């Protein structure tokens, strides 16, 4: 990490930043975080006699009756409550996750049914490690921006997996966000431009039928996370002509608290700009939910006119970057659903034994 600047290759002046044919934005947003918390020191106690300093204070853990579908339903309901939109007018429901309950049978069709959006719609599950939800957002911008549909619901949600005793177990949390993408004139935040950057980089993967992901240790840093996040952010900013100082907030994918802080530093963003959306210390890494739930926390406190940068990262590897500007509609819509902080402050601490039961780590 020491020599990496993320600026090794110059950005082409004709950078391929994407803008929809007609204005698009976020009509409603919603978050979800389960009730249970496992302190990092519990994991350290069980596996290293307390000798490993935890990466995060605690992580969120789903209850026995929760999964990506139930969590996505609640976040989606919050997004719809904020938007005040008739769910039957939603043209697409897309759920991005690494932990869909079924290998074959979509999460999205259950979510669409539960929120009353069925049956005149596209429904599909997205997979691109931790950027599956932001990829769904990009596609939603395209479908709404082309005028093919008026509203699309893009959700990033995970009950993240980490092998017992592995470094990832300290951070693999549960939660995410849902965004109802709609026309700019009905938006609480307008998506001004976006960009996606993807390469074949094997930093983290989970093979078919494998219960836990594997990772390439330090390889997950420079050639994976930092390269993709910084390239995506720099290319987007080069295309829109914005500089870090033009943004009130920035959200970067947060596999741990350190990576997004370092990415912000590399890109010239301050601690103050990333603070509101930095949730990893409290809930861990919610994988496909990570960048998106960070954005929900930012929208919970942003003011009209504020500009927001969001950059996700998915292993394998790629980043989606979005430049948004908040509108007056946010003030009226924000109180219509629980804030992300309401879910985070609803917490019941559990020990490693209960965690092992809740996460199906005990074979009976």
């Amino acid at each position, binding site marked *: 990490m020491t020599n990496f600047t993320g600026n090794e290759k110059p950005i082409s002046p004709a950078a391929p930043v994407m803008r929809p044919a007609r204005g698009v934005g976020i009509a409603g947003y919603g978050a979800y975080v389960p009730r249970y918390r496992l302190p990092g020191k519990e994991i350290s106690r069980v596996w290293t006699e307390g000798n490993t300093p935890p990466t995060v204070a605690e992580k969120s853990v789903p209850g026995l*009756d929760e999964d990506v579908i139930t969590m996505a*339903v609640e976040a989606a309901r919050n997004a719809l409550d904020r938007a005040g939109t008739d769910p039957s007018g939603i043209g697409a429901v897309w759920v991005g996750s690494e932990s869909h309950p079924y290998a074959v049978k979509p999460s999205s069709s259950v979510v669409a049914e539960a929120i009353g959006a069925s049956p005149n719609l596209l429904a599909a599950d997205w997979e691109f490690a931790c950027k599956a939800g932001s990829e769904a957002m990009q596609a939603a911008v395209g479908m709404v921006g082309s005028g093919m549909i008026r509203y699309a619901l893009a959700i990033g949600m995970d009950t993240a997996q980490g092998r017992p005793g592995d470094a990832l177990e300290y951070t693999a949390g549960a939660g995410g966000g849902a965004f109802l993408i709609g026309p700019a004139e009905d938006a609480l935040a307008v998506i001004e431009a976006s960009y996606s950057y993807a390469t074949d980089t094997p930093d983290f993967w989970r093979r078919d039928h494998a219960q836990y992901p594997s990772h390439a240790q330090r390889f997950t840093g420079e050639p994976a996370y930092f390269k993709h996040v910084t390239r995506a952010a720099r290319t987007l900013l080069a295309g829109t002509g914005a500089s870090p100082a033009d943004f009130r907030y920035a959200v970067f994918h947060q596999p741990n608290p350190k990576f997004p802080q370092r990415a912000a530093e590399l890109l010239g963003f301050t601690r103050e700009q990333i603070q509101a959306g930095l949730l990893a210390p409290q809930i861990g890494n919610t994988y496909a939910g990570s960048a998106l739930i960070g954005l929900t926390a930012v929208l919970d406190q942003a003011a009209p006119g504020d500009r927001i940068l969001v950059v996700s990262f998915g292993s394998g590897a790629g980043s989606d970057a979005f430049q948004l500007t908040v509108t007056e509609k946010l003030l009226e819509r924000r109180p219509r659903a629980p*804030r992300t902080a309401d879910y985070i402050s609803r917490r019941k601490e559990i020990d490693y034994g209960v965690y092992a039961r809740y996460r199906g780590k005990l074979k009976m």
Partner: protein
Amino acid sequence: MDIARHWRLRRQRYALVGEQCGHCREYIFPPRDICPHCGEEAGPVHAMCGRGEVYSFTVVHEPPTGYETQAPYAVALVKLAEGPLVTAQLTDVDAADIKIGMPVEMVTRRLRTDGAEGVIQYGYKFRPHLAVS
């Protein structure tokens, strides 16, 4: 597990979709052919708001088949804001904290699964009101 039956009932189970009687205006859950209040034809459909309070409850320690992994869990009679009384599990709450009259709200959760390879059934449960700032 009866896939067809659960599939037919999915709207009421996922989202508390009941009815409001077109004759006497009373709310009906679950939906039925004849209004239990006035004896006329029931309907049209009406989605309940999901809010209610605990009318009574018990804690299940000896669960029926299909619910073994969840025990102990609370089952309550919930009086919906619209009037109907529904039976449902309570979730996201410790049994010691449940009180009669406690305000609760509907959430959609996993009800049971048909083994490791069967379908997952989702449906309504109730949890204490989420405290909002």
